[in-house]
Every structure is written in structure tokens, then in C-alpha cells.
């Protein structure tokens, strides 16, 4: 397994996989729609995740003549990917810091109410 460099785009992809769970399979086009990433960004990320063992990919088990379209390459989260992905998301949240900053309150004095 190779080491994976975590970027914001990688986290976007991981978040989708984590939300879908271990059993759910997805394919490139669907991932593009769910993450908002372009194909030129997504495929290298999927390859990196696959090489790191976080996801696996396999051909859809259908006959193209039956479904009337070419078979798709499906991607699925692995157990190791789930654990590592959750850890990475947690690290990111800690680094990003609290996001609960309150918007400034209106100054009552400005309205002559203080």
C-alpha cells in the first residue's frame, strides 16, 4: 500500500464514500455529481485512493447487451479506507478549528436603545 497525501479534494471524495458506507458502490460520473469535482481532478484522486487501499474498484457485473450500455467501473470503500477516512476527516476538522463563530450582534446604541 502506498501513502496517501490528504487534500481538500481527497476529503470531498472520502466524505461521499463514508456517507454511502461499505456496501454501496458508485461510479465516476456519479462521484463527479456528488463531489462537484471535474473529471480531470477526480480520476487521479480515485487512483490514489485505490493505490492506498482505501477503495477498491471492479467492473459492474452486467452484460452490456442486457442493460443497453457499456459496463461501468464501480468504486467501493474498504474497511481500512473507512477507518482511515474517518481519522482524516477528524484531523481536518481539528485543523480547520471551530466553525461556530457567531455573527456580530447589531449595536443597540446605533438605534438609540442602549
Amino acid at each position, binding site marked *: *500500500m*502506498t501513502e496517501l497525501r490528504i487534500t481538500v479534494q481527497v476529503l470531498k471524495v472520502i466524505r461521499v464514500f463514508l456517507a454511502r458506507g461499505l456496501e454501496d458502490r458508485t*461510479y*465516476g*460520473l456519479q462521484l463527479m455529481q456528488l463531489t462537484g469535482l*471535474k*473529471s*480531470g*481532478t*477526480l*480520476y*487521479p484522486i480515485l*487512483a*490514489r485512493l*485505490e*493505490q492506498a*487501499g482505501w477503495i*477498491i474498484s*471492479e467492473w459492474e457485473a452486467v452484460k452490456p447487451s442486457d442493460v443497453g*450500455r*457499456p*459496463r*461501468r*467501473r464501480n468504486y467501493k470503500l*474498504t*474497511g*481500512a*479506507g473507512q477507518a482511515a477516512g474517518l481519522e482524516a476527516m477528524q484531523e481536518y476538522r481539528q485543523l480547520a478549528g471551530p466553525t461556530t463563530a457567531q455573527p456580530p450582534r447589531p449595536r443597540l446604541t446605533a438605534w438609540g436603545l442602549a
Partner: protein
Amino acid sequence: MTIVYWAFGILAAAAVTEEFLGWVPALCRLVLRRCANRLPEHSRSRYQEEWTAELRALPGGPISMLIWTGRTRAGVRQLASVLRQAHEHRQTILDGVVGQQFTLDDFDYYLVAGSYEVMIDITALSPAQALEAERLVTAEYGELVGVDRAEFLEPEPDEGIYERSVWTTLIFADPPTCAS
């Protein structure tokens, strides 16, 4: 006369545009094939097939196809780099093979000692047999965390023909240390 020229020009432009848009899917497939050819050999057929399938499923018309193909092309260099690095990494592991060849049922596989990878040589088997082979080895070694399948054409010596081969690498949660 000018009006006639304008009308002719508009008709000609419409015909050329329609012709061009009709050729867009074929053009995109050609570009995708060329993109796949820039990847390491063992990944070419996989990505070409994957991209062609996605191109067909793409919502929208020819312009969406062109944009999607252009964006895919933009990422090919990076993808090739990722795949090449992974291949070199695997090659480094394979160079250090000390494990022997094992046979389980009807197929041979190689244990890559000291790593998390078991490489199975399932050359010339059908996809169904390949999956069965993977299932058997997985049962031997425990929790599987990754699968990497590569299909390529292998020349048959003296016969001038090519045979489809499948090489599979199984990645396990724990280093495999025992042989069957």
C-alpha cells in the same frame, strides 16, 4: 444579392455545425483513446473502457461531451504519474520476492514476503475463474482490503497471437506469512 449570400452563408454554417456536432461522440472517443494510451500499459484498456462508458452516460449534448473530454484529458498527466508511481512501488516489492510459488487448486500464485500483498498469477483464465481464484486465496489469508486487477495482451511465442492475461494483486490487512 447580398441577402442571397447571407442566406447561403447561414445555411452553410448550420450544415457545418450539424456535421461537426454529429462527429463529436466519435471525436471524444478518439481523444479518450489517445489519453488512455498516455497511461502505463497495464491501465490503458481499463481507463479507456471506463471513460467510454461514462461518456455515453453523460447528461447533456455534444458540448457537454467535449467539455468533459477536455477536463479528463487535463488530468491524464497526473493520473499517469499516480499509476506509474504505484507500479514502480509494486515492482520494488516484487524485486524483493523471496517467497516461492504456491499452487492452490488449479492455479499458481506468488507470495510476496514481507509485504501486505499476495500476487496471484491467473494468466489466461476466464474472469469467472479469476474471481474464484481470488476468493480461494482470500480465504487463505484473511481480511482483504484491496484488489488491483490488470488485464493486458500477452504475445504467445512462435504463434504470433496475443492472449488476454489477468494479473491480480490482493492486499490484506495483515502481512501474509504462511503458505498453503
